[in-house]
């Protein structure tokens, strides 16, 4: 592997002959010239200029060969002057302006500068393939020179060889784009060496290329971010380089010179930005450190100069400093948060054993926990806390707790802060001194009491608003990360490059992952071959029929479930009036839970009937069906609560009942999930291991589990208005679920056999959480707040027609309060009550969305055009390489014939030199 990644800062003068061989992995004899040994200042100069010429052309796009490429640095050696760039002025058809010396090449020049003798040739493949030697930077420079010279030579001998070349070109065109693909093995070593030194290939391995790439980036960054700084800096630092990026700079640049350029660029950046830049460079720590040391020293000087700069630059710098401080503050906060990350080890273990796919379930669970914690915090601070501090008089004796309340949520829980009915409709006689209520203090009234109905309404509203913003933001973020324009193509390459999960730490898990990837690759290949041969109409018809049938059956199942829930709830309403037992309350949640549990299994069995093209599609379809089912059931229940219960429980507190009902659903959901984990995973594992003698454990069904989480979260959100402490229950439930699922997973399950696009899936999960779940809940709550009459005997809104009335009453109160807060009623009147504003906002939103769609479409077009252009360039490259190859072959033939006829092409000095080496 040699020292490719190790920097050698020593000047070449210090390198002895043998050492330079060792360090650069140079095939001996490839460059030896009689007058360069022993090493002398002259040879060093030669090496430098060769090195430089490589580096100068080593930037990207160097094939374009900027005009004037031959006018190199002053120390340019004789060969540089011999080889003007191929597209340079006058270099196309006649000998360049370099003089007559280059018109007739002495045979030794070629041999000396790049090895065409038969002897060194076989060495190269070994150097390319073996790990002991590889093309060194020195080789690269040589190859570039040879490339250049060859093209030049070829251009003025074009007439002689035209026939042969045309033939070759025709062959190349005939065999299509893959000429090089197929024939690379047959290329001569010299051509291979040229290939290896192409700029596009050196970025991947050469330090110089990396440095120049990052130099360019730094320049771009600086130009973009702090333009005013540029003026006074460039004047002093880089008089000649001002207008050029390095890659367009035709002059020879050595690696060290490049490095110093980079250092200068880094110096012009602010400290934090410089560190950020350095951190992202693919260099080793020692190299980064040396870059940082070098760029640090003159900082004080720059700062001093800045002081004299114009106001404008000062402002820019200040703004920049502010941004950077904020940035580093954010980073520090982030890292301290990371240190606090709970379950770090548990998550690592899960990731190590099951990979990212199963991990995504647990991460989603963590996200839900965060949402609930946020909501709970708000509710505790503004509703539960104040209410608990000023408890109202209880209506009757407190019923004794029997233990069943933990399941039903009724009984002794009924008249606590847990439910809506407990909250008072009066103002808590408390002057707003506390910091908590500060937000609700209007400036005019020095001691406005704490208005509980308002607090109730606003806290729930604000909580939902914050949740909505966070959800939409995280959804948008994850969309931006997981969907790129044109990301649908290239499934083979993505599978091979990106499917290994480096988190996996167990031998067994690693083997399992290998199995999965192998299966996946085989499936992909089979699919690909299937796609090559079109399917028959009959088969397609059959497939469509199966698909339609299963969809119909699944939709029928969902509908059946909804009808069953409806009928059963009606039945419960009638029977409950008769019986009124507490345990009977649990029947409806139980039935719904069982339906929720059983129907997905039914859908899964149905899904086994239908043929699917891709496993990903299968997962999506399963999720979609489950979701439809759950939505149908929840929709029926919502109707049941708001439509029927409100009417039936006219004399009672229906809000309390709905809150309790949701509590029961939540608890029942948890219990059934426990049972499912126990029977679906543990017992099934034991059965399949003991009875069926199968080696495989049951798979962890991520989609179903995530949907269960989403279902539970929807229940929580639905219940927040009626039972403010429901998020706390949900938090406890999620914590328990985490540990139970983790234990069950580690003991009973194995990773899913199908590969799983974790990030796409988490995007989908978030979307599902946002769109049907959150949006549906919001609609439900809005309906409850705006349209449903609150019950008359309990709760903060007991005297009002709707809950929203509380807001209106407050506004009217403010109107009477005085002119100082008159803007608030105005805002209310024109922005909230008036529908025109809503229309305007939604119209604007639609326009923005439409514009964005158009922009994306335009970008797609540009991408297509760019791809076309790149492939054209690639064809050009192949064409040139083939030409080169033919020239090499012809040359070889000539050499051979010359050797055969006794006209030695190689000067005797060079031969001895090679022998020495």
């Amino acid at each position: 592997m040699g020292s490719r990644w190790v920097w050698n800062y020593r000047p070449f003068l210090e390198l002895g002959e043998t050492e330079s061989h060792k360090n650069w992995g140079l095939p001996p004899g490839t460059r030896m010239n009689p007058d360069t040994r022993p090493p002398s200042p002259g040879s060093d100069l030669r090496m430098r200029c060769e090195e430089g010429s490589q580096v100068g052309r080593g930037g990207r796009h160097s094939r374009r060969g900027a005009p004037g490429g031959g006018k190199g640095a002053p120390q340019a050696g004789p060969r540089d002057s011999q080889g003007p760039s191929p597209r340079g002025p006058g270099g196309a058809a006649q000998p360049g302006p370099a003089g007559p010396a280059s018109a007739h090449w002495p045979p030794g020049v070629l041999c000396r500068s790049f090895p065409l003798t038969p002897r060194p040739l076989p060495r190269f493949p070994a150097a390319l393939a073996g790990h002991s030697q590889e093309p060194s930077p020195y080789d690269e420079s040589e190859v570039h020179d040879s490339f250049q010279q060859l093209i030049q030579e070829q251009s003025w001998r074009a007439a002689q060889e035209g026939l042969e070349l045309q033939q070759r070109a025709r062959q190349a065109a005939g065999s299509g784009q893959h000429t090089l693909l197929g024939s690379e093995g047959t290329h001569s070593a010299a051509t291979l060496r040229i290939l290896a030194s192409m700029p596009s290939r050196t970025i991947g391995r050469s330090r110089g290329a990396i440095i120049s790439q990052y130099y360019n980036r730094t320049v771009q960054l600086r130009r973009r971010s702090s333009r005013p700084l540029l003026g006074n800096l460039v004047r002093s630092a880089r008089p000649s380089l001002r207008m050029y990026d390095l890659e367009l700079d035709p002059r020879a640049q050595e690696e060290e010179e490049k490095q110093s350029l980079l250092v200068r660029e880094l110096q012009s950046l602010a400290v934090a930005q410089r560190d950020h830049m350095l951190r992202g460079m693919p260099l080793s720590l020692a190299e980064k450190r040396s870059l940082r040391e070098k760029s640090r020293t003159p900082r004080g000087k720059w700062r001093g100069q800045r002081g004299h700069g114009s106001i404008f630059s000062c402002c820019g710098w200040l703004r920049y400093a502010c941004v950077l401080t904020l940035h580093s503050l954010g980073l520090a906060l982030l890292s301290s948060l990371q240190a606090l990350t709970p379950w770090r080890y548990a998550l690592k273990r899960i990731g190590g054993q099951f990979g990212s796919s199963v991990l995504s379930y647990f991460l989603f669970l963590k996200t839900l926990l965060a949402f609930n914690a946020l909501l709970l915090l708000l509710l505790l601070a503004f509703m539960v806390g104040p209410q608990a501090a000023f408890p109202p008089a209880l209506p009757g004796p407190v019923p004794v707790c029997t233990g069943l309340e933990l399941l039903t949520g009724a009984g002794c829980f009924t008249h606590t802060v847990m439910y809506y009915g407990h909250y008072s409709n009066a103002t808590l006689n408390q002057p707003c001194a506390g910091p908590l209520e500060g937000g609700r203090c209007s400036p005019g009234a020095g001691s406005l009491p704490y208005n509980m109905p308002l607090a109730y309404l606003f806290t729930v509203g604000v909580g939902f608003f914050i949740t909505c913003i966070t959800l939409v933001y995280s959804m948008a973020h994850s969309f931006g990360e997981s969907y790129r324009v044109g990301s649908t193509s290239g499934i083979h390459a993505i599978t091979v490059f990106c499917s290994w999960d480096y988190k996996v730490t167990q031998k067994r898990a690693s083997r399992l992952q290998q199995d999965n990837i192998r299966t996946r690759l085989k499936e992909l290949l089979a699919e690909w071959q299937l796609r090559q041969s079109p399917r028959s109409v009959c088969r397609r018809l059959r497939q469509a029929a199966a698909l339609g049938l299963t969809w119909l059956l699944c939709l029928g199942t969902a509908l059946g479930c909804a009808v069953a829930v409806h009928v059963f709830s009606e039945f419960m309403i009638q029977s409950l009036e008769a019986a009124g037992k507490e345990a009977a309350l649990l029947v409806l949640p139980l039935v719904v839970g069982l339906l929720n549990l059983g129907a997905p299994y039914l859908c899964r069995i149905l899904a086994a009937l239908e043929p699917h093209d891709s496993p990903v599609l299968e997962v999506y379809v399963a999720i979609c069906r489950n979701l439809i089912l759950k939505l149908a059931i929840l929709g029926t229940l919502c109707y049941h609560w708001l439509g029927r219960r409100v009417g039936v429980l006219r004399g009672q507190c229906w809000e309390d009942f709905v809150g309790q009902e949701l509590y029961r659903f939540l608890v029942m959901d948890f219990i059934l999930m426990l049972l499912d984990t126990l029977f679906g995973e543990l017992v099934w594992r034991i059965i399949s291991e003991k009875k069926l003698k199968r080696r495989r454990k049951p798979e962890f069904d991520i989609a179903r589990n995530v949907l269960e989480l989403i279902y539970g979260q929807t229940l929580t959100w639905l219940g927040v208005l009626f039972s403010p402490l429901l998020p706390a229950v949900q938090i406890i439930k999620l914590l328990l679920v985490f540990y139970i699922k983790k234990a069950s997973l580690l003991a009973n399950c194995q990773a899913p056999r199908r590969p799983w696009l974790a990030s796409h899936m988490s995007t989908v999960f978030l979307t599902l959480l946002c769109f049907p779940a959150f949006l549906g809940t919001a609609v439900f709550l809005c309906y409850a707040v705006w349209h449903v009459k609150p019950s008359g005997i309990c709760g903060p809104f007991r005297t009002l027609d709707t809950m929203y009335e509380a807001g209106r009453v407050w506004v009217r109160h403010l109107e009477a309060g005085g002119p100082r807060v008159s803007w608030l009623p105005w805002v209310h009147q024109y922005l909230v009550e008036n529908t025109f504003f809503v229309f305007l906002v939604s119209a604007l939103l639609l326009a923005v969305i439409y514009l964005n769609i158009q922009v994306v479409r335009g970008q797609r077009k540009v991408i297509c055009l760019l791809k076309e252009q790149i492939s054209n360039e690639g064809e050009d490259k192949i064409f040139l390489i083939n030409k080169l190859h033919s020239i090499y072959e012809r040359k070889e033939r000539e050499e051979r014939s010359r050797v055969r006829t006794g006209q030695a092409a190689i000067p005797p000095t060079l031969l001895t030199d090679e022998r020495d080496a």
Partner: protein
Amino acid sequence: MGGSGSRLSKDLLAEYQDLTFLTKQEILLSMYVVSAPHLVDEQQARSGNEHTGTPIAERANRSPLSARAHKRFCELLPQEQQSVEASLRAQVSFEQILSLPELKANPFKERICRVFSTSPTRDSLSFEDFLDLLSVFSDTATPDIKSHYAFRIFDFDDDGTLNREDLSQLVNCLTGESEDTRLSASEMKQLVDNILEESDIDRDGTINLSEFQHVISRSPDFASSFKIVL
């Protein structure tokens, strides 16, 4: 470790924090791991990190076990290397690094070590190399640097491009090296053809860094899977 927190001077620690994507805790933890790779098994890590979330290094400062670990590491080193700088400069051989639980099961472990090694013979990692490695594989590293190093890891012959041999070797690593697990020759050829067809934009028969990064940029899963949690 006997106080690796104190052994790493504040300046050095700050420098490491500036130049890598690691947090202070992670750097201390990696110091701990490098010092005593054979002692950090999962049990210990769990007891150190799961419950309270205090950094393992602080905990290690207190525990006699880790003090022993450091002592043993120092015993491994020659007498003159036991100073702070020397132990930082000390090279840990591949065998020791490869026996870390984080790398043990990885089919690319040798490649990873080779890519990150800066020693002339490419057979050992210094502490700073190890930090580099962890920095690239950390949560906060940019996708750019991750894909750069992934490219170098996949470039088995170190020639700067992924050619057909690299690709088939990569596929073999992914599917398992042994005779019965690897793909058949025709499948392999088909697969490599397809990969080149999809990602070799300029049609030169190999995949270079920018083409590779182009492919990677379309797969958001890469950044989340190209991670090693210490």
